[in-house]
């Protein structure tokens, strides 16, 4: 481009990244407004919350005047430790027995996440398979499947609340008098049904996108080889739509862990069988105990971060999908291998070549 830029950039750094086209600084400049907004609305609040979670404000009134002498003091990890300690935390009785409220909320979170995401994935893939088929009225079917996803969650919560009323449609259909809206295992089931109804279409949509990238020739070849429909599904469809599906499942997992509107809208607060980390943190913040509320939110944040990390590492969820990033990573890996091989005194080229052959032959066997 220009000689000045080339001269200013240190040559050593340039060599490190062979794929860079020398526009990194321009990219940084263009991205900075976005990063600034993210910093103000996400990163700074996160750090403020972490700071807040280390403080506790006492609000006990003076017994003689009745006036609160409030003092905010640093308690370190006290808010976190107290929450798990059944001696200091309020214990509640949900469906898992009597335990500290945070533990109960955590178990509910995990239970909802596992059950909801599993059901949604199965239903979502089924929806995608239906939506991908070419038939008369395809547009109507696609629209019908996507309607639940388009309805705001709090609105669908109100709707399901009516359905699950003691005199509601659900009880009329199954001919029972189940008290879904009380506070019991049925309430959990009601939440799960509402959540699956609402968000299976999301997975369906993402899976459909993955499905449409599969080349029809692959299926034709499979048919020629006499593969059954089930075998085509498990050997072709699932592996090829996996990248799209894993990202969808990751997003659903993260948002189900922060589930709030459905328990809040359908059941109300302080219902321990459907209490989640989000609703609990909300209750604490409403009671102006910002320290503990922030601590619970940070715990939820960490939980979500760990799960997201595991997804990316174990299932290889490709969230960013940047070819350049991948190429750079692959190049680095090759260099590392070469360096390792060189250290062992073997010729680098043969090891690298051997690796490539192994991979190719492995794919050939499948």
């Amino acid at each position: 481009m220009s000689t000045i830029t080339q001269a200013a950039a240190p040559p050593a750094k340039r060599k490190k990244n062979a794929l860079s086209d020398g526009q990194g600084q321009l990219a940084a400049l263009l991205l900075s407004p976005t990063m600034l907004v993210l910093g103000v609305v996400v990163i700074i609040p996160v750090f403020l919350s972490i700071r807040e979670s280390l403080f506790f404000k006492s609000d006990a009134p003076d017994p003689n005047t009745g006036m609160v002498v409030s003092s905010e003091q640093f308690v370190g990890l006290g808010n976190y430790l107290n929450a798990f300690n059944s001696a200091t935390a309020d214990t509640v009785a949900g469906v898992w027995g009597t335990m500290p409220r945070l533990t109960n909320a955590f178990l509910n979170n995990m239970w909802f996440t596992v059950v909801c995401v599993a059901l949604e994935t199965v239903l979502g893939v089924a929806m995608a398979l239906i939506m991908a088929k070419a038939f008369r009225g395809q547009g109507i079917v696609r629209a019908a499947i996507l309607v639940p996803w388009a309805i705001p969650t709090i609105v669908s919560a109100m709707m399901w609340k009516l359905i699950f009323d003691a005199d509601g449609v659900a009880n009329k259909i199954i001919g029972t008098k189940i008290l879904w809206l009380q506070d019991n295992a049925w309430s959990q089931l009601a939440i799960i049904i509402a959540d699956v109804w609402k968000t299976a279409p999301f997975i369906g949509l993402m899976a459909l996108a993955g499905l449409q990238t599969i080349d029809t020739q692959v299926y034709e070849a499979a048919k020629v080889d006499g593969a059954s429909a089930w075998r085509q599904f498990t050997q072709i469809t699932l592996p090829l739509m996996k990248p799209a599906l894993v990202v969808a499942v990751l997003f659903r997992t993260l948002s189900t862990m922060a589930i709030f509107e459905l328990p809040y809208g359908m059941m109300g607060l302080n219902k321990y069988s459907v209490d989640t980390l989000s609703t609990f943190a909300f209750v604490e913040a409403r009671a102006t105990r910002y320290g503990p509320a922030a601590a619970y939110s940070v715990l939820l944040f960490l939980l979500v971060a760990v799960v997201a990390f595991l997804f990316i590492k174990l299932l290889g969820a490709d969230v960013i999908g940047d070819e350049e990033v991948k190429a750079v990573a692959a190049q680095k890996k090759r260099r590392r291998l070469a360096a390792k091989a060189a250290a062992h005194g073997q010729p680098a080229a043969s090891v690298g070549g051997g690796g490539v052959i192994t991979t190719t032959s492995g794919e050939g066997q499948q």
Partner: protein
Amino acid sequence: MSRPELTRRSLLIGTLGVAAAGALSACSSGGGATTPAATGGGAAGIDWTKKGPITYVQGKDTSGYVQPTIDKWNKDHPNEKVTLIELSDKADEQQQKMIDNFNTNGSAGYDVLSVDVVWTAQFAANGMIVELPAAQFPTTGYLKPAVDACTYFNKLYCFPSTSDGAMLYYRKDLLDAAGVTAPPKTWDEMITIGRKIQATNPGINIMGGQFQKYEGLTCNFAEWLNGGGGEFLDANGKPTVNTDAAAKGVQAMADAFKDGVIPAEASTWSEEPSRQAFQDGKLIFLRQWPYVYSLAQKTDGSSKVNGKFAVALLPGATGTGVSTLGGHNMAITKTAKNPGTCKDFILWWCGPQMQKENLLASSQAPTYEALYADPELVAKFPYLPVLKESIATAKARPKAVRYSDVTLAIQDTAYGIVKTPTTDVKAALAGLQTKLETLTK
């Protein structure tokens, strides 16, 4: 930044942040502010002659009465204009906004607040609202329980604007048909009458109330507990729920659920579902607030019981029961800049004339005693004499600084009994006693 992997990491954090940190950022909005130590909000240092424009903050006005009334004030007081700030229709969201305004030193510019009776202690103890000197705010002529609910440690912090008391709605047609001339005074009488009516009206339930787990449960539970002669807190503010009298009332509630006097689905009822059940003719007796009266009298087909019901005082263990006191009162924030106008506006708004207009427009129960005997009003609202009696004998919910915790402790205990009526009531109340002792320390 120029290296791709750095950008990628930042983007990843951003993505995760959007997914996970919604709750976080919501929490930190109020957390960042360090609250200055409350100074007591005493009357000293307030210049009651200072006048100028003010704001009036209340929940969503569904009656359409508030703004036109404020316009009237503004017409007569061009230099002391009142601006209405409407908050959410949900009580806890209104409360949160008022606390946020205080935590940020009045950044929202709230001057006069419409305060729910149960927030008084918290707002007063934290110095959010100022003490109202008796000389400037005379309370003669106002219902005593409504005035008492405005005090904290024997000082007046609010001025009574609207009140509320529960009544027993009953199916007069069914009682007449069964040859019962007067509504029941005790729970036992109510159950006897109910069983008699059930014999000829199969499928009808005897009693309903609000037993979903929310503030309404605290009110209903309090009425059973108080109706048996018990009390949450004694005169000194010490918890006294593990008494025989309290257990007697609560046991009566547990038995009512156990024997099906109150249907099990009442554990999912808030105000509206219970009103619906009564209007559909599924209940003989209903514990409810006055707002139901005009709705259940509607002749547009929404109510099957119009013209067939009447109201009475709540029943108790040995005689007439005790209602829980509701209502909203007016208070002045610590950061109000024109206390003189605030005072004039409150006294005008809560005066007999405006309360009468408010009652006619929005059917909210007045706090000015004489209005309950006004012939014009009684003709329009036949329940007024009963309501006055209900409010005059009503009991306030515990005046606790940490009211949200106190009411949750009460709801936990009450909902446990409602869900499983065979619960050992004495043990449950002993547990509640321990909790309340820590909360009111």
